[in-house]
């Protein structure tokens, strides 16, 4: 019996420098649910993920985020993570001299959790996710390929077992096999651990693998539409034109396929 957890975002507003990026976001995610946020370039998708995790440089100007009733915006990033939030970074950072297990051990130590089975757990998850075992002792993300970086992020997620995961453009830079492996592991976490997921993406390709319960469309810092998976399919056909965005979605998809940063 798993407890039901709730991540509640209410009227969230945030700036980067003087610029208003998020203009009142409302979202509620429960354990086991998969929500997708789709939006064109510059709509505030990545800002949302960083504001949720607490990256320095983003100013929250209004609203709130509660995890099981706790105001997480008042917490530094490491306490948000300890409270059960995990961000799969779009661009995982290289950390020379620090291995995956060094980092996971330190996370367990911070949370005063028993790390005795950690090594076996890491090996099992790396195997399942197709993360090369030879890279386990190496510096985090240093000289990893795009796919290895994302698989590495997923090993961390699988071992840390958060309550909620934000997947920031997890499909960027991934080939179709890697995308499938990663999506499968996310799906299993939603079933086995009742992980709640907020998948941020530009492109519906990910959503064919992940099959979200809810799809939200983010335009200019606001959620302008919410629906089921049919909304993603419709967006793929029509683009964001009906929301007043004339961007050529096909072009954006092209950029995504080749994993180019936008």
């Amino acid at each position: 019996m798993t407890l039901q957890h709730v991540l509640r975002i209410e009227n969230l507003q945030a700036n980067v420098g003087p610029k208003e990026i998020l203009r009142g976001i409302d979202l509620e995610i429960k354990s086991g649910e998969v929500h997708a946020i789709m939006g064109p370039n510059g709509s505030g998708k990545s800002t949302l993920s960083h504001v949720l995790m607490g990256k320095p440089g983003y100013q929250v100007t209004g609203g709130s985020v509660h995890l099981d009733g706790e105001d997480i915006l008042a917490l530094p990033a490491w306490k948000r993570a300890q409270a059960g939030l995990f961000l799969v970074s779009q661009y995982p950072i290289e950390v020379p001299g620090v291995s995956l297990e060094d980092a996971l051990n330190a996370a367990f130590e911070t949370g005063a959790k028993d790390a005795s089975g950690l090594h076996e757990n890491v090996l099992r998850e790396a195997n399942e996710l197709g993360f090369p075992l030879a890279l386990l002792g190496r510096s985090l993300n240093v000289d990893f390929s795009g796919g290895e970086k994302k698989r590495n992020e997923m090993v961390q997620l699988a071992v840390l077992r958060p309550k909620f995961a934000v997947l920031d453009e997890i499909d960027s830079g991934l080939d179709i096999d890697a995308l499938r492996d990663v999506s499968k592991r996310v799906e299993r976490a939603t079933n086995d651990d009742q992980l709640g997921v907020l998948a941020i993406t530009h492109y519906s390709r990910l959503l064919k693998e992940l099959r979200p319960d809810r799809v939200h469309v983010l335009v200019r810092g606001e959620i302008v539409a919410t629906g089921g998976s049919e909304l993603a399919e419709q967006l793929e056909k029509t683009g964001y034109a009906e929301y007043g965005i004339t961007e050529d979605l096909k072009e954006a998809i092209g950029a995504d396929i080749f994993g180019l940063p936008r």
Partner: protein
Amino acid sequence: MPTSEIEEWRYSSIDDLDLAKYSIDFDQSRVRESDSVMAGSVLEASIEPLVIKTYNGIIDPGFEPPAEISLRLLDPEDIAYDFSGADLFSHLNALLSHPISLSISSKYDSARPVIVLRYLDADKATAVFPNFCIKLESGARAQVIEVLLSPTESELLAVPMTKIFQEEGSSLSYLLLQDLGPKCTMVGHQASRLMANARLRSMSIVAGGDYARLFTTSTIAGAGADSSLNAAYFGSRDQVLDFRTLQEHSARNGRSELYFKGAAANDSHLVYSGLIKVDKGASSTDAFQTNKNLVLSEGARADSVPNLDIQENDVRCSHASSVGPIDEDQQYYLESRGIKPDLVQRLIVGGFFAEMAERIEIPGVKGALMVLAARKWEDLQQ
């Protein structure tokens, strides 16, 4: 007496040094053998080392060297080369020290490290002058570890000198561990002179002292010689750790590579000033110099001044230096995994030094560097 007004002593703590305070005492009978976790880890990891103990610079009279090593208590002429970077302190050392000279032949079992434990100690402010000359005979291979130790409460001015002379085709892995007590001021020199095709891999790990200065000179004196000079150091409290280096190329086809890395915590101050000097005629020279500094607190600072003096056209030379805090993106990335900030800092600094541990060639002693980092963290917690 030099002052910080002159370039070689800029940023140093030389103006605070009162030479008159120190007496000179050649009685080694009162010297205690201080403990050192770092030295202990090295001794434990070494397989059947040849251990030589010295007390305030004077060798244990009971020491009997094996046949492949000749040991002399007087400075032999063949090692007494002049080196650039000589100063008042190296002259004092030459006048006042009891030099120990090791001459290692090609018959010596190179798998057996030579560990020189230098215990320094005095019950009043005392200046000590350890002087150690290592000669590798033609074709000899050796691993030498030199450890400088003093008890916490001893007030010392340590003026150590290490001179390395490598004949043709010899190969030396050298490790210095400096774990002196906090009331110790060190003004030290290490000089090496490499003849044709000689190879040196040197690492200096500097942990202790109040003001600790080390002047490293390496001269490529024969064609094809290859010198790698490395140092790792971690300042805490109000330590000043001061490194001066000179890579001197006077023969062709030589290679020298320098990599010095330091971290500064609390109110500590790191200094690096180095020069690559390539003489006319030293063609086909490769010479590289890198100094990296991590500054971990508001009160800490690091100065880094790399320099080149190239008199020859046919050379490949580079120098690089950096001074900065922990990378914000790395910090945020690890914190976002649920790691508290002081552990994140510890991980990143450990990672910063892990690269240096890989550059220690002597088997089993890579861990000494991590012992240093761990001990410093304990220091910072207090």
